[in-house]
């Protein structure tokens, strides 16, 4: 029984420069509730632009030139994201859809404590929460992601890369959104830390039931964690299928090319795809 959370139809984004660049070309996508969708492609394929675009986070010169984004809210019914006014959009953000950025150096405000950056989400979105409640909620989030509540008064530069990434996840989880968009969340991390973080994300998804759009160029990673994978190239989705299908029977030429770019870890010495 398909239970879509997000319906993207004919979505297009153009960078209004000279000459104009079509970053996303008529992309259509259905995201199921509770699903992990991997969005794979190389740099410049439009995966980040698409992810930002459906949340209206794009900045000039990017312009959304067409298409619709429908969010099927569990409570409020269908929301046309493009039609929301500025204030509505602001309230929609983080509450329904949140984002995990690459947590390296600059995604956290360097002059504010980690705790305060968690708390200000509540300040803005849950105005009826008192100070003590906010602090408790922030502490709880830090515990959930195993950073520890004693870190609430730390500054971002005092934390390691792995911890900063967990803080980003905690922040994204704050309002219990229905969708988390993750943009290369583990790319800058060591493989061991990466595995930990991914395990954590899976666990949180089990517990809280949100969907995930996971953007990365690391296809082998996606194959292991995604339900479905969408391969993007030059602004278009060239193939969408379950991870297994992509692995066992890739249809598109480009998908095969991508697969062959990753050598096998175990098994025969040779490239990834068969």
């Amino acid at each position, binding site marked *: 029984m398909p239970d879509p959370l997000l319906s993207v139809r004919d979505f297009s984004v153009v960078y209004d420069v000279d000459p104009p660049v079509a970053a996303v070309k008529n992309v259509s996508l259905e995201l199921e509730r509770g699903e992990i969708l991997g969005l794979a492609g190389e740099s410049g394929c439009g995966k980040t632009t698409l992810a930002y675009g459906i949340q209206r986070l794009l900045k000039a010169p990017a312009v959304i030139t067409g298409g619709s984004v429908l969010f099927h809210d569990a409570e409020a019914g269908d929301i046309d994201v493009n039609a929301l006014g500025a204030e509505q959009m602001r309230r929609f953000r983080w509450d329904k859809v949140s984002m995990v950025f690459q947590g390296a150096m600059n995604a956290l405000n360097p002059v504010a404590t980690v705790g305060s950056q968690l708390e200000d989400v509540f300040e803005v979105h849950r105005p009826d929460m008192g100070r003590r409640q906010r602090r408790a909620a922030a502490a709880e989030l830090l515990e959930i992601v195993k950073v520890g509540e004693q870190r609430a008064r730390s500054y971002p530069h005092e934390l390691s890369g792995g911890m900063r990434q967990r803080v980003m996840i905690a922040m994204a989880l704050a309002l219990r959104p229905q969708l988390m968009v993750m943009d290369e969340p583990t790319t800058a991390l*060591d493989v*061991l830390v990466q595995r930990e973080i991914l395990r954590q994300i899976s666990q949180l998804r089990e517990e809280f039931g949100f969907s995930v759009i996971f953007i990365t160029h690391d296809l082998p*990673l996606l*194959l292991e*964690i995604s339900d479905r994978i969408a391969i993007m190239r030059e602004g278009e989705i060239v193939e969408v299928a379950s991870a297994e299908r992509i*692995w066992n029977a890739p249809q598109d030429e480009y998908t095969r090319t991508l697969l062959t*770019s990753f050598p096998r*870890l*175990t098994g025969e010495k040779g490239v*990834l795809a068969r």
Partner: protein
Amino acid sequence: MTTLEVRRITKVYNVRGAGQLTALDDISFTLNSGQTIGLVGQSGSGKSTIAKILTQLEKPTRGEVLLDGSPIPRRGRGLRSYRQQLRMVFQDPFASLNPYHSIRYHLERPLRLDDVVPAAEIDAEVRRLLEKVRLDPDAVIDRRPHELSGGQRQRIAIARALASRPQILVADEPVSMLDVSIRLGVLNLLADLQREEGLGVLYITHDLATARHFSDEIIVLNQGRIVEHGTADDVILRPQDPYTQELRAASPDPERFFATTTGGAR
């Protein structure tokens, strides 16, 4: 045949206000020409420190590096000679080429500095180098780095490293910053060159899969110590050390994943 021997290298840094940090602890291995060794480590393992010591950017606290049995000279002609024989390819194709100069300039310089060929043959040699890295000389020779793609730039960096006809090539994360579909091409090039020129290659990386693919032997570094050293297949397929086992378990391996799971549990 050339042998590079790293003998009991230790590097300790004094960090102000925080005591000492041992970046490398008693590292020893031997690299012969015609062989590729993959040096695998995560951040903080010391792999970049090894590269710096081999290229003389840092001096070891203890231990020594020997080329064909003799320690590296500290200065003068001996050092120059060493530097000609051991070259490095860096991680960042954007940063390692001077944006102001043409490709021709980048390749001519080492030829001139090291007197590799007589002046009259320099142009021909530049072209030969470009062909060796599978680039069309006419298309790139007068370009500036920013006009080329990341993959092309990295090939130029390799050509530049080869200019002085070295015996040993140290490649520090040579493909991490390149687009995924280009990586294998560049690594394959390195493998071909290694064969053709009889080089000894030290391939430094954090990625187990490519290390396995391109190395004869693999050394695993953990916080400055060698925890495992063996043939590529032995280390990856039959790891002895718990850290190596963990690394392997943590690295994405769809082959094994799809073979062992039904695709449900993640």
